[in-house]
């Protein structure tokens, strides 16, 4: 019944990475992403070094070697949005396609830029995956809250996370109810025509919306009943230790090295 594991990205473990304070992990992840973004195009040794850091961290977290790689492919299609730079960067044409009225040419500079964008997004996504794989979602939210992310945004993320599971269960029940009544006859196949299916799916989305809307009212009642007056309060169950400070310092040094390497080559 429960769809728990469908959305949970957390990989249970008790490694050095798992035990780091979530705030430190969030900050390091953000710094890592920023560092990737400001590396110049074609700084391959620096990108390779960043990848090395990732591999090391994922090994420290005792994740399976291919874990990050496998999950990261999910986000790769988004990098395809950058495919236009292949054709728009001025430079030596490597390959061209003649179209009626114009020519599409891939330049060497365009290729380097495209590959760099791909590398940046791919590394950043892997780091984010590492963060969510080693940090429980509630800890992540506490971290955001205590890093001064506006409370409303954190609360929305929190409710989304909590009720995603409830909604998914509800959607599952609706789907099952549809399947149970999508009987076939001896003459025709079961399941109905495409238009009919589409109409049922549309109605189900509407149903889900109405149910969620009604639920939101009940949840709000439950909050008010326990003293909610417009400000969400949470407690931080975490304390920054010496180890956390060390990890943060180490990360800063490594990222600084990567930057120096990237910009001097």
């Amino acid at each position, binding site marked *: 019944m429960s769809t728990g594991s469908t959305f949970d990205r957390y990989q249970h473990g008790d490694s050095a990475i798992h035990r780091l304070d979530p705030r430190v992990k969030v900050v390091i992840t953000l710094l890592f992403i920023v560092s990737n973004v400001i590396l110049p195009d074609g700084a391959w040794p620096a990108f390779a070094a960043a990848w090395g850091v990732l591999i090391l961290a994922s090994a420290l977290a005792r994740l399976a070697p291919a874990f990050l790689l496998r999950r990261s492919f999910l986000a790769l299609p988004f990098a395809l949005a950058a495919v236009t730079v292949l054709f728009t960067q001025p430079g030596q044409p490597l390959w061209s396609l003649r179209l009626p009225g114009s020519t599409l040419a891939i330049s060497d500079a365009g290729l380097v830029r495209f590959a760099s964008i791909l590398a940046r997004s791919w590394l950043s996504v892997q780091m984010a995956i590492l963060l969510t794989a080693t940090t429980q979602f*509630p800890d992540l939210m506490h971290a955001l809250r205590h890093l001064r992310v506006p409370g409303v945004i954190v609360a929305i993320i929190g409710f989304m996370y909590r009720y995603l599971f409830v909604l998914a269960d509800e959607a599952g029940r609706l789907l099952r109810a549809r399947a149970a009544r999508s009987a076939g006859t001896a003459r025709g196949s079961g399941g109905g025509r495409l238009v009919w299916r589409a109409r049922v799916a549309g109605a189900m989305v509407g149903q889900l919306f109405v149910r969620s809307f009604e639920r939101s009212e*009940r949840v709000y*009642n*439950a909050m008010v009943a*326990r*003293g*909610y007056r417009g400000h969400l*309060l949470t*407690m931080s169950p975490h304390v920054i230790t010496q180890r956390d400070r060390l990890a943060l310092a180490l990360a800063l040094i490594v990222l600084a090295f990567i930057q120096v390497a990237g910009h001097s080559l």
Partner: protein
Amino acid sequence: MPIQHAETIIDNLNGSRPATVHVANLHFRYPDGTLALNGVSLQVAHGEKVALVGPNGAGKSTLMLHLNGLLQGEGNVEVGGLSLTKEHLPLIRGKVGMVFQNPDDQLFSPTVFDDVAFGPLHMGLPEEEVRKRVQNALAHVGMSDAASRLSHHLSIGQKKRVAIATVLSMDAEILALDEPSAGLDPRARRSLIGLLRELPLTMLVSTHDMMMVRELFARTIVMDGGRVVADGDTATILADQALLEAHGLELMV
């Protein structure tokens, strides 16, 4: 200091004890025009455990929502000697622990700890006190080792227990439970009944579970059509076949 009003001193079956819940001539109409409460009057004495039964749409849940001011109809509602007014609302919400029917509505935080801490935190208690209360509340419902678990990983029976803990941590004096045994398997239901029996709190429990009523509550209030149609000793009410049939209730023996 609670103010003692002369009229809140009532005589009931158990002798003379001050009423902690006092509802007089309460009317409520939903915005869509449905008259949900049509002159409800009842009193619950301190420490009393009362069952509230009646068909769907009788007004049970609507009445419960009035006890801590989530709905405000016409009439008089007093809790622990405080009349239900805007100034008293925060105090009254601390006194009345509402446990809603669906635990997924009650447990809105990601972890069990966060949910049980929600009430005390929003009462403005210091963090140390909050932690202590969360521990105590979870221990009371037998869920001590679940503090760091995620609410959606719990079974329905566990969710119900945690839902009760979320109001125990507020140090509620009165528990208002809406259909606590609905949807539970026999074992979870049995353990919930045990829990309710042991909690030394005033309780108003809306339910269709007549077997639980007979087992747990000395007093029963029957509602139908927005009114209290019977109020008294559970054994007497459950023996009144005509009354039960007239209000769509049945007790299988």
